[in-house]
């Protein structure tokens, strides 16, 4: 692994809510609140968190489907979130995305062949035979045959649709793919097929993924490093394979202990209450009202990400520099 392929600095997204009263101050939801991380070439970076934590917004900002409020996004050390339209369009060949629900991410009125060919048309692959060749090769890469070209999305099963969704992202030969909950809607037996496929494609095509999911079993299985988000902030980043201590942040611990697993060996930490309203997040550490280990300081001071071990960062007052033997 070398220099980061993707780097995100202080990335922030505020959504403004419509005013309910005329003279009211406009309320903002801090969907993503100043997060920074990087992804090395060839790495699978998992992003987990509960609904509304901002993980999908982060993914969509990186491929510039959602415009950030402020912050920087860098691809190979080149800032991409302020590029003129034509340069961004060219860059889209390298940065792709796969969506959660395969039924809504494929246009129901178009054939699979048309859908896979379209990105090539957009990016000026003029030669029809050449386009066809690329489409067929991509279909083959995701385990489908030429007989799918004339079919419509509704004729396919969920797993086949998701294969087409992956193929549509691959057709432009990208370097980096955001995979947004792409296996969440699938049954277990199909999910394992898609996970194997994603892994195989990463190795074969030297791809880099940002793998977004709420399913921690899936994320831990597939990712090299995992970032955990809570209320728009990254609370922990750790390496799944080398981290001897495992997750440290109290939220991550609770989250991981809540995974229903078939072995039932985990010790359970049951959190109280719901995720707070992101319009009025708690002062200090956003997690402190639910945190079993919170001290006074947590309600006043906001912690930042601190390196506690190689490839392991935590945002928690309990693990400040010096307090924790690394």
């Amino acid at each position, binding site marked *: 692994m070398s220099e980061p392929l993707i780097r995100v600095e202080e990335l922030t997204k505020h959504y403004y809510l419509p005013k309910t009263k005329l003279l009211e101050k406009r309320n903002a939801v801090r969907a993503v609140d100043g997060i920074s991380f990087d992804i090395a070439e060839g790495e699978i970076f998992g992003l987990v968190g509960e609904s509304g934590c901002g993980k999908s917004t982060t993914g969509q900002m990186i491929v510039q489907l959602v415009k950030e409020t402020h912050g920087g996004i860098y691809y190979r050390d080149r800032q991409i979130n302020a590029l003129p339209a034509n340069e961004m369009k060219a860059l889209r060949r390298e940065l792709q995305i796969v969506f959660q629900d395969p039924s809504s991410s494929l246009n129901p009125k178009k054939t699979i062949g048309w859908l896979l060919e379209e990105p090539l048309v957009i990016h000026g692959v003029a030669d029809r035979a050449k386009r066809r060749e690329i489409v067929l090769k991509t279909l083959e890469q995701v385990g489908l045959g030429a007989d799918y070209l004339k079919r419509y999305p509704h004729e396919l099963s969920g797993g086949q649709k998701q294969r087409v969704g992956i193929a549509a992202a691959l057709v432009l030969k990208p370097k980096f793919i955001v995979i947004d909950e792409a296996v969440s809607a699938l049954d277990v037996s199909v999910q*394992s097929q898609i996970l194997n496929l994603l892994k195989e494609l990463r190795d074969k095509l030297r791809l880099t993924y940002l793998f977004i999911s709420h399913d921690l079993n899936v994320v*831990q299985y597939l990712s090299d490093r995992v970032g955990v988000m809570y209320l728009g902030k990254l609370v922990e980043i750790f390496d799944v394979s080398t981290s001897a201590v495992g997750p440290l942040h109290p939220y991550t611990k609770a989250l991981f202990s809540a995974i229903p697993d078939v072995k039932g060996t985990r010790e359970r930490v049951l959190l109280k209450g719901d*995720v707070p309203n992101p319009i009025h997040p708690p002062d200090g550490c956003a997690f402190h009202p639910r945190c079993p280990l919170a001290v006074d300081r947590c309600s006043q001071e906001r912690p930042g990400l601190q390196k506690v071990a190689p490839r392991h960062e935590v945002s928690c007052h309990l693990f400040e520099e010096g307090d924790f033997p690394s």
Partner: protein
Amino acid sequence: MANTLLAIDELDVAFTIGGKQYPALRQLSFEVREKERVGIVGESGCGKSLTSLSVMGLLPESAAITRGQISLAGKTLSAGLREEWHSTRGRQVAMIFQDPMTALNPLMPVGKQIAEMALTHLAVTRKEAKQMALEMMAKVGLSRIEQLYGEYPHRLSGGMMQRMMIAMALICQPKLLIADEPTTALDVTIQAQILALLREMNRSTGTAMLFISHDLGVIREVCERVIVMYAGFIVEDAPVQDILENPKHPYTAALLQALPSVEKRGQALYTIPGRVPPLTERGGGCPFAGRCPRAFGICHTITPELDTGMDGHRVRCHLYVEGRLCG
């Protein structure tokens, strides 16, 4: 041993599409004892939700029971008598759904909806019903209940709403609670809370539970026994620990092997080739034969029986005869 509460005997349910009949549930037989927590697990299209709808008498118009019967607390519910179904629902069987939002009336305060339930089914006054509703809301772990009583559904979070649904379902002290994927739409930390609540309610009220989920991990959290369904058939039925540690049916085994986990990092996941056959493409023989790595000649022609082994572990597979592995 406790008495049998729900008994389903050789139930067949079929959909009629374009004048043709397609069997969706086949030879379904199982029992739920009083106070027991039974899980039904399977992938989409296996018939697990249809099973719960059959028990509730809520089958869609295009589906009908073609054979067999359902008895509840010793009383047989016949398919024809809608009235009978109606009086049974709510009083003896209650149900909670994946999406509580669609099950609640958006224009009525939630607390009032819970009280209505008691008013309809029990001989109580309005005041008593409200008191019961408040007590029930406290029991399911809600705080600020006086205030919450008057809130409308859209003001509640998913977890709170599911607690409300549980309160509404249990207010008439039903003998059986059917929970159809009640935590699938919730976040894991909230899911853990709801699962703990369901276990607790089962312990304190003695309501038996039929818990439907696609997630074996969730089933393990809540249930004592699990029924594995595939393409409309029960393929395996045994205590949860037993199934997880020693799955007998090749489908159950494959399902467990296909689950991703941190321990399986670096290895390819086990996959089941193909997909669950859709309703219109189901033929004779074992329903799993086409995808089964251990299928042999007879599997493709003769549907195996659901045999009970000596340990009470039921499995529908030709590899097992009287609980022993042959071949």
